[in-house]
C-alpha cells in the first residue's frame, strides 16, 4: 500500500512558541486516521501546514511521494489533498449548487469561460452528502450548521482530492446530524478516500478511524488503536490537565 501522506520532522514555531514539535507520521492510502489532543495541542496547525496555509519552519510534507515544499494551497489541492474547517467557510450569497460549482471548477480561466457548469455532477454531489433537492437553489446563508458542514464536505470532495483533512466535523451539530455526517464519512472510507480527522467528540470518532494519533503541544504523545490511545496515561493526563 502506497503512502498517501508523509510528515517528516515537521516543526512550526511562532516566535518563542513551538506549535509543531518534530512531528513524524504517515498515512497509507485508503486509511482513516484520527488526530486528537486537547485545545491548543496544534492539530489545526498541522492541517494548515499540510495545506500550505502556514509554511512550516522545517521538515517535510509529502503527498503520494511528492514533496509539497512551498507549493501554494491551490496547487496542493490539485495534487490531491483538501480540507474542511472547524467553522465552515461557505460562499453565503451563492446557492448550494454554486458553492459546489466552485469546488468543481478547473484552474483554467479559459475552461471556466467556454465550458458550462456540470449541473448533473453538482446535484449528484449535493445528494451524496445528504443535501435535499429543495436546498439546491437556496443561498448557503439559509442552511443549518449541519447542512453547512455537508456543503463544505461536498465542495471539498468536488476538488477531486483523494486525501481529506476533516477538522472538527461534529462541532455544533445535533445528535441526528452527527449520525448523518458519520455515515457520510463511512461512505468516503468505503470509496477509498484517505482521511485524517480531528475531533473532540471521541465516541463519534472511534468507529470512523483505523488508528489514532494523540498530540500535545505539537508533539506525538501516543499512537495506535483507539482504545489503547485513549486509555494511555499521558493522553488521559493531557485531556484532564494532570501532570504525568
Amino acid at each position, binding site marked *: 500500500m502506497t503512502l498517501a501522506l508523509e510528515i517528516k520532522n515537521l516543526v512550526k514555531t511562532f516566535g518563542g512558541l513551538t506549535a509543531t514539535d518534530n512531528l513524524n507520521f504517515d498515512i497509507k492510502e485508503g486509511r482513516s486516521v484520527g488526530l486528537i489532543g486537547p485545545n491548543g495541542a496544534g492539530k489545526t496547525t498541522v492541517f494548515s501546514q499540510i495545506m500550505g496555509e502556514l509554511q512550516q519552519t522545517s521538515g517535510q510534507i509529502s503527498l503520494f511521494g511528492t514533496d509539497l515544499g512551498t507549493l501554494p494551497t491551490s496547487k496542493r489541492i*490539485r495534487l490531491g489533498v483538501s480540507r474542511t474547517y472547524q467553522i465552515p467557510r461557505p460562499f453565503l450569497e451563492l446557492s448550494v449548487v454554486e458553492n459546489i460549482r466552485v469546488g468543481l471548477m478547473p484552474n483554467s480561466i479559459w475552461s471556466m469561460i467556454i465550458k458550462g457548469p456540470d449541473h448533473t455532477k453538482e446535484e449528484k454531489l449535493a445528494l451524496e452528502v445528504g443535501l435535499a433537492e429543495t436546498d439546491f437553489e437556496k443561498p448557503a446563508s439559509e442552511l443549518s450548521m449541519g447542512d453547512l458542514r455537508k456543503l463544505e464536505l461536498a465542495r471539498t470532495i468536488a476538488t477531486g482530492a483523494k486525501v481529506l483533512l476533516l477538522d472538527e466535523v461534529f462541532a455544533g451539530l445535533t445528535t441526528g446530524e452527527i449520525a448523518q455526517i458519520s455515515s457520510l464519512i463511512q461512505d468516503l472510507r468505503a470509496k477509498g478516500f484517505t482521511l485524517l480527522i480531528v475531533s473532540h467528540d471521541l465516541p463519534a470518532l472511534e468507529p470512523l478511524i483505523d488508528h489514532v494519533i494523540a498530540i500535545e503541544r505539537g508533539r506525538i504523545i501516543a499512537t495506535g488503536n483507539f482504545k489503547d490511545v485513549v486509555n494511555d496515561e499521558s493522553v488521559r493526563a493531557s485531556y484532564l490537565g494532570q501532570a504525568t
Partner: protein
Amino acid sequence: MGLRWYHFTAWGLFAIGLALLPEIVSKGTLRTFIFANYLVIFAISWDLLSGRTGYISFGHPFLIGIGAYTSAILTKRFGIDVELAIPIAVIVTMIGGLIVLLPALRIRGSYFALVTLAFMELMYQLVQVIRPDLTGGTRGMSGIQTLTRGAVNGFYFSSFLMFVIAISSWFLLRTRIGTALTAIGLNESAVEGSGLSVTKLKMFAFMASAFVAGLGGAFYVHYLGSLAPRALFDINFVFTIIVAVLIGGASTIIGPIIGALFLTFLLEYLRPYLPGAERYFIYGGIALLLYMYQPKGIYALITSGWQMLQEKSVK
C-alpha cells in the same frame, strides 16, 4: 449559462428602446444620455473588478486616463489613425495598469483602496510634469479628433458601444468565471481552498476591467475632443462611478446601467436648482438611504418588487 427566453427579450427590448430614443427625446436629453452611456461603461469596468471581487478601487480614472491619453497622444501628436490608436490605447491600459496595479492586488480592503487612490493622484501629477509637450500639461489637450458629429450620431455610437460592452460582460459573467469572481468577493481564502488560483482570477478581473476602462476612456476622449486632467483625475469622478454601481446594484450588469442612468439624469435635473457641488449632497444622501435599506441597490428593489407582485398574483 442558464439562458432563458426572457433574457433575450429583455436585451432585445433594451436595444429597441435605445434605437427609438432619438425619435422620442430632445437633442439636449440625448446629449445627457451620451454621458450616461459612458458612465455605464466606466461603472461596468469598475464593477468587473471591485463589485465582483470586493477589491474597491478608488483609482479607476487612472485606467480610464491611460486609455484616453494614449489614444489622444497617438492621434494628435503622432498622426496615427484613430482605428489603430484605440486598440493600442486599450492594450497600453491593460499592460500599464497591470504593471502598476498588480502588486497592489496583494493587499486588501482600505489599503488597496488607498493605493489605487494614490495612483490616480500620481497620474494627475505625472501628466503635468512628464513630457507636457505630449500630454498638454495642466491645460490638457484640445482639438482631438472626434468620431461623431451631432447628438444623434453621438448617441447611437455611444449606445452601441455601451450595449456591446454590457451584453459581452453579461455573457462573460454568466459563465463559471462570474461565479468564481463573486466567490472571491465573498470569501477569498475559501476560493483558494477550493483549488483555484486567486491571483490568476484577480489578474483576469483586473485585465477585463482595464480592457473596458481603456476602451471607454479612448472612445470618450474622441467624443469630447478634448482632455482636461483635473476633470479626469477627480475624486468626484471616482465617486460618481462608484455610487452609480452601488445605487444600481453591484455584482450585476443591469445595476450599473440603472445606476449610471439614474445618477446622470438626477444630477442633470438638479442642475437648475443646485448649480454647484451641493448636488452631490443629494446623491450622497440617496446613496446612503439606499445603502441603509437596500444595500443591493435599485436592481434588487425592482426584482424584489416583481417577486412580490408574482406572489400576490398566485394568491
